């Protein structure tokens, strides 16, 4: 029950909280589960859409500092929408 626990057969980001930037106005923050032809499968996901106003950078900084306000238990980001995937922990609030 201690030390590193790996997930053989899973994507290297499995279980890691990531930022999924899209080619559009939305950004998703959630726990990476898997990636397949359909897209990126996330758990406990927060969503920000800059088209509705506000700053994406502020949203991400707030998520890094105060945690993710999860709006979706599971969510698929379609492959064609995915621009980049980075770890939330790489942001420093």
């Amino acid at each position, binding site marked *: *029950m201690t*030390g*590193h626990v790996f997930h053989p057969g899973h994507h290297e980001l499995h279980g890691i909280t990531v930022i999924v930037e899209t080619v559009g106005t939305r950004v998703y923050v959630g726990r990476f589960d898997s990636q397949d032809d359909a897209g990126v499968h996330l758990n406990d996901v927060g969503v920000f859409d800059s088209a509705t106003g506000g700053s994406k950078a502020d949203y991400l900084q707030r998520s890094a500092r105060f*945690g*993710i306000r999860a709006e979706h238990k599971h969510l698929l980001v379609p492959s064609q929408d995915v621009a980049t995937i980075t770890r939330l922990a790489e942001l420093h609030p």
Partner: protein
Amino acid sequence: MPYDPRLIQPMREEMTRIGAKELTTVPEVDAALGDPKGTMLVFVNSVCGCAAGNARPALTLALKHSVVPTQVVTVFAGQDVEAAARARQYFSDYQPSSPSMALLRDGEVVHFVHRHQIEGRSPQAIASDLTAAFERFCGATV
């Protein structure tokens, strides 16, 4: 749904063995967190192997440091559901995640470790961040 108690018992004992007081009911949480004097670390325990499996040994390492919180308490997310929910009300500015750790001084959150700051990191790295927080917030006040 709570997990099989037999499954999580070793995870509970990993915390109580290092001196953390386990809070399993709402009255226990209120008794501990409702009297905000000094420094207290609240460890939100979790079954999650990839994160909690590093968080518990990280706290074990950190508590060997020369400067530590006055009190260490723990609630178990997903198991002692009401107690965990109640504890989170004491640091409600922070979104719930587990495992996580809140360092309080006189009832105020002065440092918070989210799950995303635990994932994929070694116990030593997490412990290093914790001890830095202990030195900053748990030392003698001037």
